[in-house]
């Protein structure tokens, strides 16, 4: 992995890295290397997973050993290079991990993972087709198209036990089988890259870090089901992923891996990119098809299933990004090998995005069968600032919130569904004592209510009514019967909605009612928000002993509710205060608190 006997500096250059300032770091590195003082070359890669330490650069030696440095700034670049190359010293506080000593730094973050989907992410330059090929890339597609029948490919995927990683967990081999058997000459393959769950960025990271793996997966899938045309439906909010996909597709055409008679076989395959325009419901397959056809993205009843009547009325197979990124590995290593990883019914690995109040916010791939505790604590490093764990939210707006008693639940489709949450696409948001569970449920309902397409009444009006009740509770106007009303409404919406958006929308409310009922009771019966989040249920105070009378709070208060003499403790008038908490964030002494 290194160039011309020189040390290779691999800069994390995904959206997370760039957002954290990787572009300025890149310029600083280029400037330093241009001096010729250091025997090193610069390369970029996608997200390594350590989003919480971005910007990141990995120093890879000719023998393959490496050391990862994080928290870079342009200013730190010259000293880091000098320490590494001239003084031969390790700048310890910047080290994220090192290959020769996994126990050093945060090596346990990667040590505790099992990387199949992310095997190239952060290791190769996603904009270089040659780097992908040098790791054995496109050999699986070549093998499938040259030496296997479509049925053999489907059989292999079936043996792997791979299930849809978009969240629903339908067996991929079976799904392909339906599309293969569907009558019709013209068939379509769609890659669902419309990652809409707030707090989930697995697919984005794969598309940015290893776009060729997804394309290779699509080539194999197209061949297996008999589709000569594929679409990638990707969110417009992911410009970098779109750029890298476009480049990868162009490079594939140049090499003869896409187009006519690919890999020198009789098979033709084309891929087109469709940019989503911002509608969460388009993650639902029939809505996505409508959107690709240029219409409002509204779902329709199934059957007919897309496998028989999909895009333009033709048989269509839709797979998620992560599902497709698994395919080349499965074809290369065999389905049985893949099935060695995981549990009885959930095979392989799952990529999770750790976010919220977790120490190591980032991207991690773990084998199925890991407990949630292992994912959050062993990989994720536990709760931020050592606070107490309260809940983990899985599966976004369709999922649920699980308390610490359920942390030993394993990552497995059936085990997670049994708790009331869902595996979902892979978002894992950790909540601590400062997160209000009623507010979190209201947040998700506000999301699904706004994203409901409006076609069916239970979802359109039902989510609206649920949101009204939740808003009322958060405003301190809840009634004792509200909890029961929420449960009744939730059951009806789940039963009668047309698509999964409505069918799963009540999940965040139901799971919080089930596991955090005391917080609802606090809001409704005792007029308290113990997390100190809901404005109507808290009062802000200034601690007279800590306040230095600097006046910063009074200056920022939009309603002039704070008064006090200079250098004397200030006071907040609860009658005037609108609980915007701006003063709380402004106070240098942390003298202001909510109760």
């Amino acid at each position, binding site marked *: 992995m290194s160039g011309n006997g020189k040390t290779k500096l691999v800069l994390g250059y995904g*959206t*997370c890295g*760039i*957002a*954290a300032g990787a*572009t*300025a770091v890149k310029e600083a590195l280029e400037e330093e290397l241009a001096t010729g003082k250091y025997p090193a070359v610069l390369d970029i890669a996608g997200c390594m997973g350590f*989003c*919480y330490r*971005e910007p990141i650069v990995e120093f890879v030696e000719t023998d393959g050993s490496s050391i990862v440095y994080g928290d870079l700034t342009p200013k730190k670049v010259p000293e880091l290079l000098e320490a590494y190359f001239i003084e031969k010293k390790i700048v310890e506080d910047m080290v994220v991990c090192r290959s020769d000593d996994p126990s050093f730094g945060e090596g346990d973050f990667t040590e505790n993972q099992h990387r199949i989907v992310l095997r190239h992410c952060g290791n190769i330059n996603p904009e270089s087709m040659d780097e992908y090929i040098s790791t054995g890339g496109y050999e699986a597609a070549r093998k499938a198209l040259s030496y296997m029948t479509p049925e053999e490919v489907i059989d292999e995927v079936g043996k792997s036990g791979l299930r849809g990683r978009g969240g629903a967990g339908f067996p991929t081999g079976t799904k392909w089988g339906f599309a293969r058997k569907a009558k019709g000459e013209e068939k379509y393959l769609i890659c669902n890259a419309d*990652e*809409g*769950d*707030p*707090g*989930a*960025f697995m697919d*984005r990271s794969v598309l940015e870090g290893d776009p060729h793996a997804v394309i290779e997966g699509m080539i194999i899938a197209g061949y297996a089901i008999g589709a000569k045309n594929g679409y990638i439906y990707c969110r*417009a*909010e*992911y410009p970098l992923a779109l750029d890298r996909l476009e480049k990868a597709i162009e490079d594939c055409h140049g090499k003869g891996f896409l187009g006519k008679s690919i890999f020198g076989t009789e098979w033709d395959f084309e891929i087109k990119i*469709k*940019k*989503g*325009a*911002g*509608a*969460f419901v388009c993650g639902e397959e029939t809505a996505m098809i409508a*959107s*690709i*056809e*240029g*219409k*409002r*993205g509204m779902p329709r009843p199934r059957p007919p299933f897309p496998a028989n009547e999909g895009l*333009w009325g033709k048989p269509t197979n839709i797979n998620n990004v992560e599902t497709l990124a698994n395919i080349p590995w499965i074809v290369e290593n065999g389905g049985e090998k893949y099935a060695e990883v995981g549990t009885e019914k959930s095979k392989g690995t799952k990529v999770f*995005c750790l*976010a*919220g*109040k977790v120490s190591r*916010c*980032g991207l991690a791939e773990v084998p199925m069968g890991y407990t949630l505790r292992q994912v959050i604590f062993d990989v994720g490093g536990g709760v931020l600032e050592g606070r107490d764990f309260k809940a983990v*939210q899985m599966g*976004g707006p369709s999922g649920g919130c699980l308390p610490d008693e359920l942390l030993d639940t394993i990552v497995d489709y059936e085990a997670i569904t049994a708790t009331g949450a869902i595996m979902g696409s892979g*978002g894992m*948001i950790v*909540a601590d004592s400062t*997160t209000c569970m009623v507010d*979190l449920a209201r*947040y*998700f309902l506000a*999301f699904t209510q706004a994203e409901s*397409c409006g076609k069916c009444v239970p979802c359109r009006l039902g989510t609206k009514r649920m949101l009204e009740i939740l808003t009322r509770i958060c405003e301190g106007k809840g009634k004792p019967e509200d909890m029961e009303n929420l449960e009744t409404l939730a059951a009806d919406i789940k039963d009668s909605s047309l698509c999964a958006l409505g069918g799963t929308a009540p999940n965040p409310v139901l799971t919080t009612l089930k596991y955090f009922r005391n917080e609802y009771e606090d809001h409704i019966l005792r007029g308290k928000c113990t997390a100190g989040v809901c404005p109507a249920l808290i009062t802000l105070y200034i601690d007279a002993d800590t306040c230095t009378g600097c006046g910063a709070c009074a200056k*920022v208060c*939009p309603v002039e509710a704070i008064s006090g003499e200079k250098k004397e403790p200030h006071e907040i008038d609860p009658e005037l205060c609108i609980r*915007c*908490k*701006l003063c709380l*964030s*402004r106070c240098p002494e942390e003298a202001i608190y909510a109760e």
Partner: protein
Amino acid sequence: MGEKASTVKERYADAEDLGPLEEILEEYVGEKGSLIPLLQDVQDAYGYLDEGIMRALARGAGYQLSQVYGVATFYTQFRLEPIGEHLIKVCHGTACHVAGADLIDEEIANILKIRDGETTTDRKFTMETVMCVGACSLSPIMIVDSDTHGKLKPTSVRKVLKKYRGDSGEKE
């Protein structure tokens, strides 16, 4: 990093000028299901979907105006009003929500007197809330034009906005 501070006029075509629209229509002749990419390109060219432009697009591409309007109002990406010089997007993904995205909104409202979907009277800033931008490790986040500002505190909002304000004469 980021765009050069160009004015809205330099960046987008005037809604009276149908030239850019015609060029875009030409690109999509004969392509089925192209209404969404058509509207995306038109919005890139004009900054928003003007009513007159939508009428001309419907005529030129053979759609009913109701179809065009139906699609334009279904997807959140499309906007029917022109935006200010700088677009502020405050992320309200789950990670940003639990990290206090509401407080960022409050501070922007406090400084610029605008809330979701609104534009300042001097047309310098438009503010909108967006769902997850997928950079959760930096929550809470706001994106101004194409620059991401992460790990925000309400107290840092003013400093960030100052960079884009120039001499716009807003309340300091």
